[in-house]
């Protein structure tokens, strides 16, 4: 079993093995998202306070959750890359960044659209969660900009890794902001003492969407990391053999 993980660290093996996972993740993800969307939009009962507007939760929460998970993956891979000098870890960090930025944008946008009818405003500057999520979007931009500005791949890897780790302090702030400060944004609904504060008919589509988007993200991340690996290892013999084998 450990051999499997050790093998995974080697680029050609990772390239092979990951190819098998991508279609499964993609299909599973789309199925769960499909069920979640249909059930959430049409079969879950309307919220007694928010009416049908609450259905935005089915895209907003997965996006927000993934925006933070992507950053965590980026930061952890960066740390692994720095400490153990694993090139593949740096490739994972590089692949996760654009995806995380997209999901952060989506979380902010869907949150804003949801806020307009519920809170009466598209944006609330004083809100700690909105502000810290916006800060995270800028952190993603900074990370990608720093990578792009440094030509040497190894140097770019290490520098952006330091940056990712410095910015990681923002993640607990986003999560706990609703508890530490007074915020328009509601408190935790799922992960709290006493279990989820939401009824099953509404909960199951939400869980499906969260897992579905996670699988979808996983498939995309693997695809991006594969491309990243190919780009970094372009001089290696295994790449040459694979490309020639394909064109044969």
């Amino acid at each position, binding site marked *: 079993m450990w051999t499997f993980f050790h093998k995974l660290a080697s680029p050609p093996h990772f390239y092979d093995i990951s190819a098998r996972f991508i279609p499964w993740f993609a299909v599973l993800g789309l199925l769960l998202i499909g069920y979640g969307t249909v059930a959430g939009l049409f079969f879950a009962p309307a919220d007694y306070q928010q009416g049908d507007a609450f259905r935005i939760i089915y895209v907003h929460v997965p996006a927000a959750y993934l925006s933070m998970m992507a950053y965590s993956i980026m930061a952890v891979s960066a740390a692994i890359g720095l400490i153990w000098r694993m090139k593949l870890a740096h490739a994972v960090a590089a692949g996760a960044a654009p995806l995380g930025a997209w999901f952060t944008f989506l979380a902010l946008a869907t949150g804003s659209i949801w806020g307009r009818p519920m809170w009466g405003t598209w944006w609330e500057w004083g809100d700690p969660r909105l*502000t810290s999520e916006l*800060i*995270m979007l*800028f*952190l993603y*931009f*900074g990370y990608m*900009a*720093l990578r792009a*500005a*440094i030509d*040497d791949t190894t*140097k770019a890897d*290490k*520098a952006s890794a*330091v*940056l990712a*780790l*410095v*910015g990681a*302090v*923002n993640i607990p702030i986003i999560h706990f902001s609703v508890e530490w400060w007074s915020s328009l944004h509601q408190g935790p609904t799922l992960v709290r003492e006493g279990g989820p504060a939401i009824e099953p008919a509404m909960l199951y589509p939400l869980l499906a969407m969260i897992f579905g988007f996670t699988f979808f993200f996983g498939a995309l991340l693997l695809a991006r990391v594969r491309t990243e690996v190919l780009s970094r290892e372009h001089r290696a013999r295994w790449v040459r053999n694979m490309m020639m084998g394909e064109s044969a």
Partner: protein
Amino acid sequence: MSAANRPTLVAGLVAILRRDLLLAFKRPGDVLNPLFFFAIVSTLFPLAIGPAPEQLVAIGPGVVWVAALLAMLISMNGMFLGDFEDGSLDQLILSPQPLPLLALGKTITHWLVSGLPLVLVSPLIAVTYQMPFDTIGVMMATLSLGTISLSLLGSVGAALTVGLNRGSALLSLLVLPLAMPILIFGARTVALAASNDVVSAGIYFLAAYCVLGLSLAPFATAAALRISNE
């Protein structure tokens, strides 16, 4: 080196402080440019928005803080640039003193040269914004803590971008996201003081950020310097 001759940590810190302060003395532009920028930016707002006194009172804390933040930003770029260009950075990295200590020394100098003058000049700006005297006291406290945090944050950003083309634009992009909380708490605390509200929460937050920066930034800066200097 015998035990008697081996340089202590304090000696190393003092040495780098002396060196950098001496260098800064010879280049008064390092002190004056951010200071002039601070003053000029502060005058832009009444020119653009209009000089109505109630408006000035309302925007005063925010304007002083934004101007201070921007002034610190433009001064950060030069933190390690001089040493990088003439090769002293190699010597610093190779020295027997721990690099985080030397990084901290350079950060302290940066604050003394770029941050402290802002704090000292801020009352003059505040008065033009009709800020009451006790509020000015709170403003200087928040600015002191805030500019220290900004120097620390800036040292990490400067170390990551030293020697890059157009490094200064990238530096701003890297520093600003994590500088936002400093700005928020700094400016809002001053605004709270102006309306005679409790300011302790904001001061504690700024102090906490400062302490966090002091404990972690030198190590991040040292790591970044080694990476950038390869």
